[in-house]
């Protein structure tokens, strides 16, 4: 996933993109696999040698998809939701505030879907390493499979363990105790793992705890302030994604009482018209796009209908995911 070539190779995982909510992940094999979708059927082996980002037509040439290179963000969108996953914005915020970079050594518990692990591995590779701990055996095994397939297993050590009880020390790994730059906790009772985190952290390293409920945050903050942590802050981040597209906007043609030279609608259309100098090639033939303003009537009244490129907020937004508590470990002397 990290060093993708410009052309698709056998064995690559490729994202087949046919819309924001329509992305599929396929492993490219040189056999007769057919990918079936709403937009036609595709022979997967034909992808070999195709440049990433290309438009690919279906077998009947009526539909098409785009072949996109996999990355941790697309991975987290396309992986099946076998457990609650962390979302991109939380992941971004965690990685930044943990001050991760190429070379960082990180502890994570639990591994969950591996979506954060994948993003961490991208960031700390090749000099750093992620030690991730998962209580559920099946999840740990599934994560190992995914990391292997995604070509990032050399940067991740997955351990099936209850880290609250057994801690984070791996007996046969050198340079772990006192060398961990960052600890991430996504646990029902994160405060129970904080002493174990301290045991592997070094002076100045960062800890993050992700919890959905405020009671968890309260317990965690209390424990952190009793331990040697400073800069304890709790934040919440939410993303607002805008729905941006052409809308048929209807406007009534009315006399403008403040301007004798114009009806208001004409004025408006010329003002707010979107990029009319643009002459897009495809749009002209579709029903959307820069069509000429059309008249309509309601009873005796006239109006003008026109495509405008507008944004509004997507109605069904993701609300709360969890609170993020960050703190820096300051070794007491």
């Amino acid at each position, binding site marked *: 996933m*990290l060093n993708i070539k*410009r052309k698709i190779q056998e064995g690559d995982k490729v994202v087949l993109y046919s*819309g*924001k*909510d*329509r992305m599929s992940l396929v492993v490219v094999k040189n056999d007769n696999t057919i*990918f*079936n979708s*709403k937009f036609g059927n595709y022979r997967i082996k034909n992808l070999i*040698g*195709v*440049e*990433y980002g*290309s438009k*690919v*037509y*279906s077998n009947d*040439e*009526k*539909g*098409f998809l785009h*072949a*996109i290179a996999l990355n941790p963000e697309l991975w987290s969108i396309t992986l*099946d939701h076998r457990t609650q996953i962390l979302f*991109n*914005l939380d992941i*971004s*915020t965690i990685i*930044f*505030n943990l001050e991760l*970079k*190429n070379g960082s050594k990180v502890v994570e518990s639990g591994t969950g879907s591996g979506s954060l692990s994948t993003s961490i591995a*991208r960031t700390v590779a090749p*000099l750093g*390493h992620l030690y991730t701990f998962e209580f559920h055996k099946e999840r*740990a095994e599934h994560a190992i499979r995914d990391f292997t397939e995604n070509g990032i297993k050399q*940067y991740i*050590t*997955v*351990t099936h363990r209850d880290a609250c009880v057994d801690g984070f020390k791996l007996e046969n790994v050198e*340079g772990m105790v*006192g*060398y961990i730059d960052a600890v991430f906790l996504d646990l029902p009772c994160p405060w129970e793992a904080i002493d174990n985190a301290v045991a592997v952290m070094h*002076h100045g390293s960062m800890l993050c705890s992700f919890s959905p409920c*405020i009671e968890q*945050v*309260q317990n965690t903050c209390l424990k952190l302030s009793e331990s040697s942590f*400073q800069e*304890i802050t709790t934040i*919440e*981040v*939410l993303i607002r994604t*805008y729905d941006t*597209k052409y809308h048929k906007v209807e406007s009534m043609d009315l006399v403008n009482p403040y301007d004798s030279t114009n009806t208001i609608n004409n004025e408006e259309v010329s003002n707010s018209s*979107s990029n009319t100098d643009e002459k897009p*090639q*495809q749009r002209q033939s*579709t029903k959307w796009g820069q069509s000429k303003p059309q008249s309509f009537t309601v009873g005796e009244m006239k109006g003008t209908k026109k495509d405008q490129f507008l*944004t509004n907020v997507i109605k069904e937004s993701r609300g709360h995911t969890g*609170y993020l508590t960050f703190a820096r470990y300051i070794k007491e002397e």
Partner: protein
Amino acid sequence: MNVDEKQNSTTPPPSQISNDYLIKDGDQVILEINQEKLIVVKLQKNKKISVSKKDVESNILIGQPYYSLFQLDGKTVKRVTQKELDVQLEGIVQLNQTEDANNKDLGQNHTSQKLTQDEIQQMKQSGKDSSTIIRTLIENSSTFQGKTSFSQLKYLKKKIKKYTTVIKVIKPTAKTLNSLYYSSDPKKICFLRFDTLSQILTMANIHSTQKVLLMETTSGYLTGAIAERMNSPDGLIFVPHIGNGGPNLSIVKNFGLSKSTLDTIKSFELKLIDQLNQKNLISSTSSNNNNNNNNHDNNNMDIEEQPDKKKLKVDQTLSSTTSTKDKEILDLIENGGYNSLIVVTKYSPLSLTLSLFPYLNASGQFVIYSQFIQQLLEVHQVLQDKNLAVNLNISEIWMREYQVLPKRTHPEMSMDGASGYILTGIKVKTTNNIKPTSPISTSTSTTTTTTTTTTPPVVEPTSLEMNVDTNNDNDCDKKRKREDDTQ
């Protein structure tokens, strides 16, 4: 596969952690002054730095661990722990322990101090330590005893900040430097708040081997943040700059980056890119005049297909006016293999984005930032209308801080409403579409044009609004009518 208690064989080499977290001679460090103000200074042996109008010997700080506290009290500067500061605070006076006091009878009149300003000033200049001064102030305050312990503590903390200075030495990182600039001079970093910044780094897929095309006017802050994360000699950060005064990347030096990482930052004039676009445009329109106008916007995208021919042409057309160094740059522009494009400037982003867009690889990710959603809307519309990108999203981050205290937990009463907007997307190729039956990767403009012509009713699926499970890898719902698809 047995995963229990077993780990991957790649043991990372132990790094020099202790040394990394010691303050060294020559370090740029951030000083947090009284938990209020952040400044960045360079520490040099035997030199002084100035903090709150007082001189502090660098030598006192050098060799101590980062995040240590130093107290400037009276005429002394010494390292202290938070615990010592707490003890100091408690030692000044016994706070009210009863719940009876309630501030209820206190008027708006704050002049309950019997000492005059002159008398206080005199104590201060005599070099008395802060505890002594504050104790005297309390003894001469007529209202202190009537306050609640909460109000008393607030009063104490306020006075302590006035009569003593505590500095914390912070290691500069993208995170800590963001706090500094965002609080002191946000315009300098284009009002880039940490949450938006972290989303930019993620959505641009920044990692050690990435080749990044970065247009910024954040005085080098963003360049430094990207370089810090890459922390590698194997990447490339190409930072065009506007004007011939050289790039303004002054903040980069505060990151403490290694030489090999710094060497991956290359900055050249944007003018060269503009000239290259001009030449390519002229040559493509004159040479392709027998093709339809679908093609003229793609000439820059088939670099890989015809690299020699294209490169040759560029060299020829520019050779008369460009120096050898410029030719190296042109090589970097055309063959950089950029997989990330980031535009964070004070300018309207449309022209800058389009100008650099040809040099982003297909399937590469881009992030455009603006404080104004209208400006991103323009870019979004052009990229969508010209089918230059997919997965286009305009988004905004909403961030809240919480006060977490026993019985007093709530989101902060004031918040920062403006984190700006980002447009993200993935570049796609617009020609050389892959027909299932055509020989792969040798398709020519001619076959492409034919393909397009034979499928006039094809509609860009991104315009569809559907709510479909994304985890359905084999969507066999082929029975739905074509009309649904083209809606």
